[in-house]
């Protein structure tokens, strides 16, 4: 069990750094309960979808969006295909990549580990930025 302050610090960091796994929109912290216990009433929301979120690393969102659009990935065959299914599919791929990255130890709640951050910042590997995706 995390310390309450650690939990708050973690979600504050995610709000700054991460994006909504559905729409890629910015996140914000909201105090949603009518009580005075801060830990219990603070949750992350997507500003655009107005949904409760935990957030995904921006690099993971970018490659997930690319994967869904580029390869027409669809795990919702029962819903009419459109913008909503694209969002749902992107969220699913975000989850898969997050799960994998976490499983092999390169990602935790506070972001990528330092070595990976360094690679990402130096752009020494293929980094799918929005510009790269749009060029495809």
């Amino acid at each position: 069990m995390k310390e309450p302050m650690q939990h708050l610090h973690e979600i504050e960091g995610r709000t700054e750094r991460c994006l909504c796994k559905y729409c890629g929109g910015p996140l914000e912290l909201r105090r949603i309960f009518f009580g005075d216990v801060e830990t219990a009433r603070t949750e992350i929301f997507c500003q655009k979808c107005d949904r409760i979120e935990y957030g995904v690393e921006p690099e993971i969102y970018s490659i997930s969006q690319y994967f869904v659009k580029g390869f027409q990935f669809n795990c919702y065959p029962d819903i009419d295909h459109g913008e909503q299914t694209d969002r749902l599919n992107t969220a699913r791929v975000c989850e898969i990549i997050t799960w994998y990255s976490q499983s092999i130890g390169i990602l935790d709640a506070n972001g990528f580990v330092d070595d990976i951050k360094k690679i990402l910042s130096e752009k020494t590997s293929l980094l799918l930025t929005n510009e790269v995706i749009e060029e495809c």
Partner: protein
Amino acid sequence: MSGPIIICHKLGCRYGNKYLLQDINLAIYPGEHWLIFGLNGSGKTTLVTILAGYGYFSEGELQVFGSPYTEENILAKRQRIGLVSGSFFDRYYRDEAVQDIILSGLTGTLSCDMTITDRQRQKAIALLDALGIGDKRLMPYSRLSKGQQQNVLIARALIAKPDILIMDEPTTGLDVFNRELLLSTISDLAQNTTMTILYITHYTEEILPEFDKTLLLKNGRIYRQDSTDKLFDSRSFSHFLNYPATVGADPRKRHVSLSVPSTIRELLNPSVR
């Protein structure tokens, strides 16, 4: 016997000049099975969301698991309490994925975070399958029927194997099969686990024989608390409703009948126009 698992002392909840709850004194012991019964607007949902650590109270004291809720302990305590309340969670959940909602029951928050293990994910899948909504796992909550949403909240409540299970009108929207499945699950949990259960309803036909204690709530106050047998006799129950009622003798199915005449048809009579 150990001390109470929940203690309320003069607990009250006031918004402006209006009291939603007032002067609630209550002691619930581990393993007890309580029925919280009240008509609409009696303060049932307000009371149980406060007890579960999700609601605000303006006065009095509350102790759960031996101490008040604090910054340090509230998330850990919430993990030990399974709350099923459509009227509470529907305010917050809309397009969140079903699986995320269920897994959030493990962290005491509304979102699910990275501490979730693969085993816990598999447990969520197994619970959804058992509740007949395995195929809805990745769907947004808002695309589910009312009954399916209720089952999601039930899975959220049960995933952490809670010490206290609080069910606020859990059969709302369930079809007859799912309602009986839920009641039989609660009956089984009551008989075969040490879980403390609080079951909130305004339907007398949902009063299981396992609910041996009852709290009657009326206009935000405790009207009476006692053994269910004592409160569900015709005389006491008529008093509570302030209306003549007959309660059947079978404690396994507490049938309550009221004769409530309607005058609506008279209003439809052409001569009244």
